[in-house]
């Protein structure tokens, strides 16, 4: 058996995925275990979960999802292109590279060695970032032939890439390189509208229907030039993300006549209209790029991945054009999904296994994470002092459906955890979509998030046409669809802006966005799937085959992973009930529920490291003392080495006492670095990078194309999986 462990780490959304003979058996994001949203550290817990029951020496390959030296090259080239500007950014970015990212192989081996308990570790391979995205899209898709389009902020160089997938090959066609990036353009507007880059893009997309796209022409004339084939170039005068500390420049602010919106302040019409405008532009670029791919490859299928592929509104627009017969979007389209893609790249491309035709996608409904059986769940419930009832399956489903029909909000925790950003019925909060107050209640009482954000519907596939226009599968919530006209209502109020959030616009107000759109999850018939069974029970009781399905978490936290996480979230919100495994907990009964506070362990120095510190400090100080004595020709006394000998022995006997000395020693280093660090980096930046950059620009050899011109297509050279470049 061939096992491949795919890893994404060190930027955001760390994850691990395990393939066994080309079958995806497990995948998880590290954030779910560490409880730090978008966790960037090495995915130790996720990898440990994936390897459960398998030791690391039984794994044949470990593959990392990008090529660090190429990324480093891009960073240095960017500084060369902008120097002498960008010193602060250089000073901030360089330490992480010098200490960690440049030594990625060594760092990965250290982490893997800890995972293996010192045993041999597998061979280490590397894919290019967009190659991993493309692999996650094509190899997981149900297609044998497909065009593949990847769009994100930036990988090594590529920000947009086009591929052609066949059973034997995933062939790169062309790419658009940094700094021209539709993903970063979207993020720049996300930042300008007062949301966080990398996590607030959903909010901007949700805000768009509340605005009018009145800035489209201005943005197209000033910020981005879009060619008929969808390739584009940004006017970099308006952005600051290349070497600055913010996404946008002063010129950007001047163009729209206002500063960036501060978080949590009022969202005026300016920002709503900008959201609508940038959404329209993104849709135009995605549709034009896809259209080019259709023409150039002749493929009738399309796969999408990369952060921009999470824009389900644009995906919906693309699907409605009908230019492709089938479109499949990798559900974990962001960087977490690269762990899966990288592993598939190795299986198919490095090891030469052709893609087999199963007719189904290979994501297993995204249910790739840990599951907990009833005995573990019950022991957690007992420990927490919960009042609960255990029910057999049919009784549990009927009771849950009945609670939902009566307007209760239910935490639903069943089976394996989902992989990717969406909750698909394993770690979900569920509610009745017919309830006119439900969107506001969920946003303000349960999720503690902005009131304008819509909720997604889960609908029984066999009843889809009754509710939504397209009647196409969407098992992973990757497409926005529209409510059928018969269910739509026209609000008679004269409200404006975000006040319209409370208008009842359909017979399913809980999931109907301002423009009658909804991010649909279709749930296909599967008698073993508890979520399908629940929807069926709800439909039988109420006649409605739709439920609100939102992720089981609160704002700022990752989706729950363990039963204890679920209990903690249930306890902290005004959820009415929790259905976990075969158990039901009612909030009103929980008088004795006591959940321990979430403890995030701080890194602690081990005793071995402290002993090593005390030994080397004793040697260093005694050496220093002896040098002083020798230089000044002072009399040598055996008492001179006594303090250092004491330090040495003390560290050996009680290493814990060295912690305070180490802290002080470290602080001394930090203090000195405040002076020396800027000096050293100034020397490198102004005496090496700046003159080289000026010469490079003089002879027009810069790899960063700052100018505003069409024809952005380029290609990249990839020497293979063995190399980190």
């Amino acid at each position, binding site marked *: 058996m061939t096992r491949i462990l795919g890893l994404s780490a060190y930027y955001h959304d760390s994850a691990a995925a395990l393939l066994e003979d080309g079958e995806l058996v497990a995948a998880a994001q590290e954030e779910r275990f560490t409880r730090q949203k978008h966790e960037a550290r090495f995915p130790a817990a996720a990898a440990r979960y994936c390897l459960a029951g398998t030791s690391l020496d039984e794994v044949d390959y470990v593959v990392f999802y990008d090529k660090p*030296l190429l990324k480093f*090259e891009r960073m*240095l*080239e960017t500084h*060369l292109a902008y120097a002498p500007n960008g010193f602060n950014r250089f000073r901030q970015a*360089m*330490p992480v*590279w*010098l*200490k960690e990212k*440049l*030594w990625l*192989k*060594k760092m990965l081996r250290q982490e893997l060695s800890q995972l293996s308990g010192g045993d041999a570790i597998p061979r280490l391979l590397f894919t290019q970032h967009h190659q991993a995205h493309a692999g996650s899209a094509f190899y997981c898709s149900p297609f044998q032939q497909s065009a593949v389009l990847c769009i994100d902020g930036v990988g090594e160089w590529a920000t947009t890439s086009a591929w052609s997938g066949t059973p034997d090959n995933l062939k790169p066609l062309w790419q658009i390189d940094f700094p021209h990036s539709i993903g970063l353009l979207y993020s720049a507007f996300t930042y300008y509208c007062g949301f966080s880059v990398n996590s607030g893009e959903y909010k901007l997309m949700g805000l768009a229907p509340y605005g009018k796209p009145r800035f489209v022409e201005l943005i197209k004339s000033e910020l981005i030039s879009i060619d008929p084939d969808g390739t584009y170039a940004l006017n970099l005068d308006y952005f600051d993300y290349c070497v600055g500390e913010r996404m946008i420049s002063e010129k950007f602010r001047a163009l729209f006549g206002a500063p960036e919106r501060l978080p949590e302040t009022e969202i005026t019409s300016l920002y709503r209209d900008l959201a609508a405008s940038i959404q329209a532009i993104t849709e135009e670029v995605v549709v034009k790029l896809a259209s080019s791919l259709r023409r150039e490859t002749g493929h009738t299928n399309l796969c999408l991945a990369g952060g921009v592929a999470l824009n389900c509104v644009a995906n919906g627009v693309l699907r409605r054009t009908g230019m492709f017969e089938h479109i499949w979007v990798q559900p974990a389209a962001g960087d977490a999904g690269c762990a899966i893609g990288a592993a598939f790249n190795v299986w198919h491309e490095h090891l030469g296994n052709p893609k087999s035709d199963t007719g189904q996608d290979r994501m297993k409904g995204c249910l790739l994470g840990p599951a907990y059986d009833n005995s573990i769940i019950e022991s957690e419930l007992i420990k927490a002092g919960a009042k609960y009832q255990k029910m057999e399956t049919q009784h549990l489903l009927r009771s849950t459906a009945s609670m939902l029909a009566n307007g209760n909000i239910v935490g639903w925790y069943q089976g394996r955890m989902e992989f990717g950003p969406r909750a698909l019925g394993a770690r979900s909060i569920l509610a009745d979509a017919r309830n006119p107050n439900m969107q506001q209640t969920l946003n303000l009482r349960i999720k503690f998030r902005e009131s304008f954000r819509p909720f997604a519907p889960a609908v029984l596939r066999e009843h889809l046409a009754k509710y939504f226009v397209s009647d196409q599968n969407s098992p992973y919530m990757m497409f926005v669809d529209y409510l059928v006209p018969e269910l739509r209502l026209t609000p008679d109020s004269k409200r404006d802006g975000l006040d319209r959030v409370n208008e009842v616009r359909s017979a399913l107000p809980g999931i109907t966005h301002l423009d009658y759109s909804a991010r649909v999850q279709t749930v296909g018939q599967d008698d073993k799937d508890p979520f399908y069974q629940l929807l069926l029970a709800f439909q039988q009781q109420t006649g409605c085959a739709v439920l609100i399905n939102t992720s089981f978490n609160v704002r700022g936290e990752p989706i729950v992973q363990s039963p204890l996480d679920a209990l903690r979230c249930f306890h902290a919100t005004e959820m009415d009930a929790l259905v976990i495994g075969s158990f039901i907990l009612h909030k009103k009964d929980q008088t004795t529920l006591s959940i321990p506070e979430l403890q995030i362990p701080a890194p602690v120095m081990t005793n071995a*490291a402290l002993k*090593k*510190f005390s030994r*080397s*400090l004793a*040697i*260093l100080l005694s050496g220093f003392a002896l040098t002083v004595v020798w230089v000044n020709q002072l009399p040598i006394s055996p008492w001179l080495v006594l303090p250092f000998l004491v330090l040495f022995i003390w560290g050996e006997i009680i290493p814990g006492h060295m912690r305070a000395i*180490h802290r002080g*020693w*470290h602080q*001394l*280093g*930090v203090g*000195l*670095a405040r002076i*020396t*660090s800027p000096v*050293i*980096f100034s020397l*490198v930046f102004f005496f*090496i*990078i700046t003159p*080289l950059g000026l010469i*490079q620009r003089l002879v027009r*050899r810069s*790899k960063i194309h700052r100018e505003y011109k069409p024809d952005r297509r380029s290609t990249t*050279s990839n*020497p293979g999986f063995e*190399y*980190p*470049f």
Partner: protein
Amino acid sequence: MIEFINDLLMFMGHHKNYWLIPILLVLSIVGGLIVLTEGSVVAPFIYTLF
């Protein structure tokens, strides 16, 4: 360290980006200093320096 230098040389050979040689040389020396002193008593000084 030898593996890193080897990777760097192969990177240069493959991508032929000779502009970066002086920068990579200096930064590799600095980075190498950090790696070589890692875990030693001077590490807090070298590590926090950058």
